């Protein structure tokens, strides 16, 4: 995965069953280590939102758009900035420590209107998939509803930007009758080319209820917001598999 692949929209997604009757596969995207607790999920989301917010700040400053397009992208920027603020506040409210903003480099994304919107389109769809892939790990119902509410707004962004690009309706504006979750590892691999410096690793302070082993992770992934995720998603997947077993018995 390179940055150019991402810009071209080549980021692969985990395919999902089209029928809801295959429900038990829907959450089976993450490994047991992905998310220890709600704060871990939120820090993962926060990093993505930081990335998106910075992306639109830079992109909108590049003066590539006009008219309605410009208004739309300004509104999207405001949404992402709000998400950063809201998630940060939520993490603090839960007694956790928000990850700090990562260093970013979007390469040639702002060379033209097309490259800007194309990168935006990919970012938004990754965001949609990331939220759907992680939502099942959120235990607090209020947090879950907020995360779902953000997920829906990212879906709006993705559709509208796809339409601005004049992409085909199905597969460009819409991504099928059902959204598809994207595994955390895939998301992080996809955004890695844009991150030049990882955010500061949250340190202790609050008992986040899990993921403590990840605090010693020196790979930098944790600082991306996903470290705890690498090891924590397992609990939920275990639960999902356990449930699947119950169903099949």
């Amino acid at each position, binding site marked *: 995965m390179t940055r150019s692949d991402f810009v071209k929209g080549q980021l692969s997604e985990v395919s*999902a069953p*089209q*029928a*809801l*009757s295959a*429900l*038990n596969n*829907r*959450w089976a995207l993450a490994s047991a280590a992905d998310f220890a607790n709600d704060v871990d999920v939120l820090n993962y989301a926060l990093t993505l939102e930081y990335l998106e917010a910075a992306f639109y700040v830079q992109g909108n400053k590049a003066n590539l758009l006009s008219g309605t397009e410009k208004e*739309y992208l300004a*509104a*999207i920027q*405001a*949404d992402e900035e*709000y*998400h950063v603020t*809201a998630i940060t506040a939520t993490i603090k409210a839960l007694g956790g420590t928000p990850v700090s903003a990562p260093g970013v480099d979007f390469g040639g994304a702002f060379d033209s209107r097309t490259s800007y919107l194309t990168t935006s389109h990919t970012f938004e769809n990754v965001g*949609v998939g990331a939220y*759907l892939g992680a*939502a*099942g790990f*959120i*235990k607090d*119902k*209020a947090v*879950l*509803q*907020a995360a*779902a*509410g*953000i*997920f*829906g*707004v990212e*879906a*709006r*962004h*993705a*559709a*509208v930007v796809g*339409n601005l690009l004049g992409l*085909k*309706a*199905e597969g460009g*504006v*819409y*991504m*099928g*009758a*059902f*959204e598809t*979750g994207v595994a955390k590892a895939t998301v992080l691999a996809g955004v890695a080319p844009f991150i030049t410096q990882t955010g500061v690793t949250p340190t202790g302070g609050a008992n986040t209820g899990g993921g403590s082993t990840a605090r010693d992770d020196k790979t930098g992934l944790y600082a991306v917001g996903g470290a705890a995720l690498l090891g924590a998603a397992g*609990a*939920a997947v275990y*639960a*999902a598999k356990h*449930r699947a077993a*119950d*169903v099949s*018995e």
Partner: protein
Amino acid sequence: MGDPQLFDGKPVLQFSTETNRRSFLKYAGLVGVGASLVAGGVFSAPYAAANAPAVAKGDLDILNYALTLEYLESDFYAMGVSSGFLSGRDLDLITPISDHEKAHVTALTSTIKSLGSTPVTKPKITYPSGTFASKDSFLKTASVFEELGVKAYHGQVPLIQSGDVLGAAASIAGVESRHAAIIASLIGGNPFPHHIEEHVDMATVLAAVKPLLS
């Protein structure tokens, strides 16, 4: 949706039987029940023994509630697509929406059946005259439906007990958000009306629909 009444209170939904109407209306009373079921969290629900439905009664009620709304949307878009006033990019953008709503009906129906329950039947739907008179009136109505649908799904998010049902509902809700944004952009509305999707509970959705059930 600022106005809780659809179509100025004119009837749009007519159920084929009184039983169906009652079964739809009763969902209003189930919100509180669902709330009490979620206390344990998504993954902590005690799962039933072999061969029993893997999800709670409340989840099935939510699925049937969603199915009713999807029936309405599916019928509405089928009418719009066949009406002839859509063309070009508009038709290109609306046709997949119609397909999605049909797929949602099919998926929800099969899901409810697979969980050992009986899906609600399609309601009889009567649209106020003028709904399909023009592209403009159709799209404005579509916008009302989509924004309501988005909020309806998000209203159920914290009430769903099963993680699987939640995932299914969320995967549909995101698609409805896409629809809502595209329709808004087509009518010169705001495709991004909120930083975070709003939500309405079943009772509020019913308050919007109930006057139309005469």
